[in-house]
């Protein structure tokens, strides 16, 4: 068990740190949460800088346009960029963390060549059209229908909670192609161009007041058969590849961010005198311990995946359960530090507290994660 970084890893960190120190001051401020075109331009502009400096798709395989970095180098990258206050992946999230890795793992050579380089360069933005009004946790119950017509699929149905739909160029779409087959075996994965006729995007307002996600209505949208990744009716397996990426390393930067938040919270509590309340102080101490342990668990999972040649282990669900709970606790504690001021939306932690409410829901609810842990890791029987 070794927590020290190799000479090569230390050099990588030092180079990255120097580069960040140079470019970050030149960056424009992040646009307001409601300015979607502005946010897209900001996020993809950052991605372009990463690409030009050789940091785009670090952990992607070389033949997918990536840099073939080790999981540890990727960890260092996420840690350092977050620590330096670099922009979050933002609008590039689905392209870099879901759709891209799926295409890299399951796509043909032509599909990889078409879709991966624009993601890495920040030229194209993806969204994820999985959830439907009647298919959330039970994703395999999805009903959006795709019927083959010549070289196209004709797609009709609706998607919901689609993040970044308004500014996306592509949608990784799950559709039902085998209505008679058992539900997991009749699903197909398609790349749908968001400018195709028949697509209507209706933004949904979140409880934080911003429009982060949308409903997407599909009315006889034609998607070329060539845009299918994997076989027809094999989309569930293809999707599981994506979801394991989502639960693997998606939260590294956020753990670092939480530790920074906690430090600022401690400074605020000291300045206001709230630190002298032993109950609150001990709570902050406990959170410091928990986030320290979550960072160690991240390093543990990364080392495990490094040993297994880059495959994320089963630790993702365990991590997400512990992390999402701790993060909500962090912002509840922030509200205690602020007292009545926590009611003011002008306090930075109030907005963060509101968005933290989604952590136990998005990317698989905590209940679903517990089912996964109990059934797949602990081997408990499926319920009836």
């Amino acid at each position, binding site marked *: 068990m070794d927590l*020290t970084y190799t000479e090569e890893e230390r050099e990588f960190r030092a180079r990255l740190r120097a580069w960040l120190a140079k470019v970050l001051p030149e960056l424009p401020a992040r646009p307001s949460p409601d300015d979607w075109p502005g946010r897209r331009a900001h996020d993809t502009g950052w991605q372009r800088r990463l690409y030009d400096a050789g940091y785009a798709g670090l952990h992607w395989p070389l033949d997918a346009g990536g840099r073939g970095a080790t999981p540890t180098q990727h960890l260092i990258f996420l840690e350092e960029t977050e620590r330096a206050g670099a922009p979050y992946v933002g609008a590039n999230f689905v392209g870099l963390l879901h759709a891209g890795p799926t295409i890299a793992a399951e796509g043909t050579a032509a599909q990889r060549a078409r879709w991966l380089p624009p993601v890495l360069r920040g030229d194209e933005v993806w969204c994820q059209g999985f959830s439907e009004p009647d298919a959330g946790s039970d994703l395999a119950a999805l009903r959006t229908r795709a019927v083959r017509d010549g070289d196209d699929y004709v797609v009709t149905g609706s998607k919901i909670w689609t993040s970044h739909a308004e500014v996306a160029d592509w949608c990784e779409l799950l559709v039902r192609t085998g209505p008679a087959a058992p539900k997991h075996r009749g699903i197909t994965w398609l790349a749908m161009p968001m400018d195709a006729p028949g697509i209507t995007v209706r933004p949904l307002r979140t409880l934080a007041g911003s429009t982060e996600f949308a409903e997407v209505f599909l009315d006889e949208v034609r998607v070329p058969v060539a845009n299918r990744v994997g076989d027809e009716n094999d989309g569930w397996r293809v999707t599981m590849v994506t979801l394991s990426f989502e639960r693997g390393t998606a939260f590294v930067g956020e753990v670092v961010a939480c530790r920074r938040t906690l430090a600022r919270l401690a400074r605020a509590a000291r300045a206001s005198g709230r630190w002298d309340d032993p109950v609150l102080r001990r709570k902050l101490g406990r959170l410091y311990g928990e986030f320290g342990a979550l960072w160690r668990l991240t390093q543990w999972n990364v080392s495990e995946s490094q040993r297994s040649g880059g495959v994320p282990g089963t630790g993702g669900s365990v991590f997400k359960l512990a992390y999402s709970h701790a993060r909500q606790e962090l912002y509840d504690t922030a509200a205690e530090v602020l007292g009545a001021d926590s009611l003011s939306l002008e306090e930075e932690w109030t907005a963060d507290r509101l968005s933290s409410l989604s952590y136990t829901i998005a990317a698989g609810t905590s209940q679903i994660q517990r089912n996964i842990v109990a059934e797949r890791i602990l081997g408990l029987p499926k319920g009836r």
Partner: protein
Amino acid sequence: MDFQPTRDQRDLRAGVRELLAGRYGRDALRAAVDGGSAVDRELWRELGAAGFFALRLPEAEGGVGLGLPEAVLVFEEAGRALLPGPLVATHLAAGAVPGAAAGTAVVTAFDLGERGGPLVSYLAEADAVLGAAGLPPGEPVRSADPLTPLHRVTGGGPADVSAYREAGALLTAALQVGSALRTLELAVRYAGEREQFGQPIGAFQAVKHLCAGMLVRAEVARTAVYAAAVTAQAADAADGQAADGQDADGEAAEAAEAAEVAGEIAAAKLLADEAAVRNARDCLQVHGGMGFTWEADVHLHLKRAWVRAEQWVTAAEAEEALAAELSRTATGGEAR
């Protein structure tokens, strides 16, 4: 960075598990409970011969020459087997108290409650008390844990164990992690076997989710314990190298490192105590009425976990130590 056990470390853990399964299986545990014999001298010597107590003593001093990362793996196994006796205190006494390293002496410590004493465990069984000149007089107290006899010391005053506090807390946390993983196993096994309403109770989500929560707690605590062992070991090694000719910067860096290690150990102890106690509670719940019996082992895990939670560093002390470390890193040095 390669934060996973090496092959040697995995082999060591497997070896200890095998040794304890053969020498201190369930029958031996229950016989000890029924017989009220907390320390088996012969087993103690066997543990000594196997290197349990001399594990971290340098080879030049007749020890095994391994470090804290190996020690936490070994103690995790002892916690899993519910091995009784002052394991941590005797291990800490190796090299300082004659016979401790070989397991011919049983050594206890004033490690209970904030800053230690006046309750002390295994006083009647002990040959020495860590850091004390002799065995102090004490009155027996009826103990909640059948395998942790207690005395209330009536004279002599508690000996200072502050030099041992960090290692003691870390190794005790490792025992807790072993117990937390064991009660998880017991709960999962029972949930798969016991049937109600025509299906295994483990198919009910309420039971399933208790078990999932147990795994999350145990894994987070286990990583915290391993990481604390690795950082403490590295700090020790660095100390050894920079012994003399140190400038002010070097001293400040060393102090910062020491504070960081203290924080990691406090977190490990806090999370491990909680994992052991709460996993035992949930394991009890999964066992239903059976969980409330003397016959089931669950209560032995719970009671021992309660004892260990009071040893070396309590939850209140750990949280205060972590708050101090948060404050230090937030206002000056940066957290790693």
